[in-house]
């Protein structure tokens, strides 16, 4: 049985410490409720940009872990970012790919290639330090600590079902510019 995205996010919220998190698309509504006022910034309004936004944060703040909650449809929009990330080689970047095979937000149309697209092989081919897939929640919980501490760039393909909410069914959340400002202030206030 596919993992529930909300269960995965709940486990990450409990374990991530002071990591910066970058949710996008269907991870955004759940993450807002789990971590409503923290070091997070959603990729809103430029689908496919989460991995690159996370890369910029990781390069700017090399002592802090950055975790991207990407989607399979989203990553396909900026697939070259795998090579760009591998080339920049941020040791503090964890790239979690929530793979459900569809564009859930727009009505669950299949992504090109559906579930057969192998992002683990793509990440390895691009030059990520490590990439693997997880399809069982107990296995995910067991491996989570290393996902947050292993040298990156690390990609973990998470085989999930659909989230309960999408950005279209749960439209809350701050506009992107407010998230930018909020994270900027928190990072620089904290020194």
């Amino acid at each position, binding site marked *: 049985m596919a993992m529930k995205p909300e269960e995965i996010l709940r486990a990450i919220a409990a374990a991530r410490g002071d990591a910066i998190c970058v949710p996008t698309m269907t991870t955004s509504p759940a993450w807002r409720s789990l971590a409503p006022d923290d070091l997070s910034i959603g990729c809103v309004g*430029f689908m496919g940009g989460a991995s690159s*936004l996370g890369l*910029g*944060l990781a390069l700017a703040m090399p002592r802090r872990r950055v975790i991207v909650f990407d989607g399979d449809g989203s990553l396909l929009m900026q697939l070259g970012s795998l090579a*760009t990330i591998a080339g920049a080689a941020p040791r503090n970047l964890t790239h979690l790919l929530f793979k459900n095979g569809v564009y859930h937000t727009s009505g669950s149309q299949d992504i090109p290639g559906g579930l057969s697209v192998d992002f683990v092989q793509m990440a390895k081919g691009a030059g990520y330090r490590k990439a693997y897939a997880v399809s069982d929640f107990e296995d995910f919980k067991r491996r989570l600590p290393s996902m947050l501490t292993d040298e990156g760039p690390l990609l973990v393909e998470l085989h999930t079902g659909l989230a309960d909410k999408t950005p279209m069914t749960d439209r809350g959340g701050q506009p992107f510019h407010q998230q930018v400002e909020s994270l900027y202030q928190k990072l620089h206030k904290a020194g």
Partner: protein
Amino acid sequence: MPESIPAPLIIDTLKDTFREARGGSTREPLGWILSVPDTHQKSVLAALDKERALRVVTCATEDEANAIGAGLWIGGEPVVLMIQHAGLYASVNTLRGVAMDGRVPMFYMIGLLQRERDRDPKESRHSMVRFAEPLLDTFGVPHARLEGPDDVHLIPEYFRLSRARRGPAAVLVGLETS
């Protein structure tokens, strides 16, 4: 008539711009160049390969460069994007979503490949050259032309402008750098 700008002059200007952005600090890297390789600015990119004070990240697309730039700026790092006019056209949604809607200072150096020496860019025979300034105008992005070595002062000026207005600003590199 426009003149080519030597790469060392551009690089020295970028270093000064970044030092100023860091309040005079000489911490390295002084700043970040996010580049989608541009034929027009290739002499600058080649010289940057030998630079230790500036860090270059080569991006696969201009969309990536915009989003990486946002992350770097949020993290406190000064950034310049070096792209080509074709890349500007390719990435307008990200420019809008990141630099404009996100109110992220984003400074672009945009190469006008195929810009004719004897013709105003707005009258160019090449659509890539002709539409660059009108596109920036449509999006309300302030821009200036780098028409020769005397214009490099526009680099820090428009970099500062992007920060002051919390959004995009651009300089257009008229002739291929030397």
